[in-house]
């Protein structure tokens, strides 16, 4: 019995040191193609709302973080096989994803998705709607009865509307607002659709300690209001806040 206890203690100690050694650098995976959440700036560095948020969270959790970009399609498989430690890529918290990964609490409130088209009278109920593969918007379009046209990157969904391949695009409203502001031809069509439970960071299910650390860092940012400031700065005054 004594040796058993000793053994457990030794194991616990080595496990915790292994944890510390293994996670002194936290690799944050993002897509880098979804402004204002995450995009690559002119220097080729990850920038945007999540860059600033992630750096702040790492500072509060006292960890060194490194940014990695990954294709949206394979962003979850690469997390669970350990190529990076967290996803912070505008990923909405959904039950389907919860089965594979663990989310922190949300760092944006559930925010609306919207349709954007080249004209007010675009048929969003039965027309062709572009959305990014594997997003909650794609799932919504598929259920809505419209014809879903999927693209691997957000850019291509916009390009499809501009070229007339799709009648409209559906995406997070925060992503669409700057586009509508810049392109005189594009307009919001129909009502906003509330989808998902807000955006959270995703971790491996076997990594509860690290998830905890980031979860409480997000809580402190909610408590002192810095998160709201960041939301206003990057996502605009109209975006829902905490």
């Amino acid at each position, binding site marked *: 019995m004594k040796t058993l206890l000793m053994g457990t203690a030794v*194991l616990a100690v080595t496990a915790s040191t292994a944890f510390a050694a293994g996670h002194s*650098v936290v690799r944050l995976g993002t897509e880098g193609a979804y402004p204002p959440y995450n995009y690559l700036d*002119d*220097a080729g560095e990850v920038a945007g709302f999540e860059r600033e948020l992630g750096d702040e969270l790492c500072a509060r959790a006292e960890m060194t973080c*490194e940014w990695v970009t990954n*294709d949206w399609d*394979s962003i979850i498989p690469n997390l*669970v096989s350990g*190529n990076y430690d967290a996803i912070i890529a505008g990923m909405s918290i959904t039950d389907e994803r919860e089965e594979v990964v663990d989310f922190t609490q949300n760092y944006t409130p559930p925010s609306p998705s919207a349709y954007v088209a080249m004209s007010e009278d675009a048929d969003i109920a039965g027309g062709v709607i572009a959305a990014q593969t594997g997003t909650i918007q794609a799932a919504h379009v598929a259920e809505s009865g419209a014809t879903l046209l999927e693209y691997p990157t957000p850019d291509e969904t916009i390009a499809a509307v501009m070229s007339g391949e799709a009648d409209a695009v559906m995406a997070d409203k925060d992503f669409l607002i700057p586009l509508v502001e810049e392109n005189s031809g594009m307009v919001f069509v129909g009502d906003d659709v509330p989808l998902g439970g807000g955006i959270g960071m995703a971790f491996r299910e*076997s990594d509860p300690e690290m998830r905890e650390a980031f979860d409480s860092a997000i809580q402190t940012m909610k408590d002192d209001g810095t998160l709201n400031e960041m939301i206003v700065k990057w996502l605009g005054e109209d975006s829902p806040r905490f």
Partner: protein
Amino acid sequence: MFDCTDPSQLSGLSWLMCYLTTGKHLSLYISVGTVLLLLAITAPTALLFGFGGASAARSRIPPLRWIGKGYIAVVRGVPDIAFFLFFVIALDQAFEWLRHKWKCPDWSEPIRQGSDFIVCAEAKLPLGTAPQWVHETYGFFVAVLTFAIVFGAFAANVLYGAMRAVPRAQIETAEAYGLSPRQTFWRILVPQMWVFALPGLSNLWMVLIKATPLLFLLGIEDIVYWARELGSAKTPRFTDYPHGDWRMWYFLALLIFYLAFTRVSEIVLDRIMGRLTRGQATLAGEAQRKAAA
């Protein structure tokens, strides 16, 4: 040089010069180097895999022959894209599993927990603490290995055919001179088979050049990724160089790059063909001999 601090004040050539020298564009130029380096390493490695596969497939030892033939059949039969998506993650996990067994024999938790793949921190490859460039280099070599395995199978089939195309009379003569099977293989068969293999291998080389955009599936940012990223429409909020959808121009540049590159390859391959044909009992070899006479 130009002063690029406020691009909105610039126009014409100076704007373009500033635009083309942003950090993002430098990444594009570096990725050209990455692609060339990948080709430079992959081609000989794939040839090596192919040579091994072909030699194994024609071995007299049955198990070796089965391995060779199995390798050729399986890899050639699986779609590249499926292979790239599945194999790289599997290969990476296999390496980590081996290191895990070796470095952490006392580990008691299961390696597979649900969908997660957990090995001890010391067995991670590369180590979780390693800087980003180590991760990128590792990813690059996994990519090289994957490409080499895939293209090696095709090369193996080409070389297998080429080995059988060497005139039987040549082998018989070697045997009549008392050369051992090993000597016959290395001194008679191998030097003569290349001329038969080259048309097939040159095809493979061309396909390999065009297959490099698959790199992005492996998490390596190649030229097509950067061209798409740079060409997509940019709004002034997120960049100093806003522009519309310029993907067409970037892809046009890629098209020219690939065409120029394959053209140069063709010229080089033609030269090699001429060199290999010399003294061979083929139609082209005969023509060469007559022209010289």
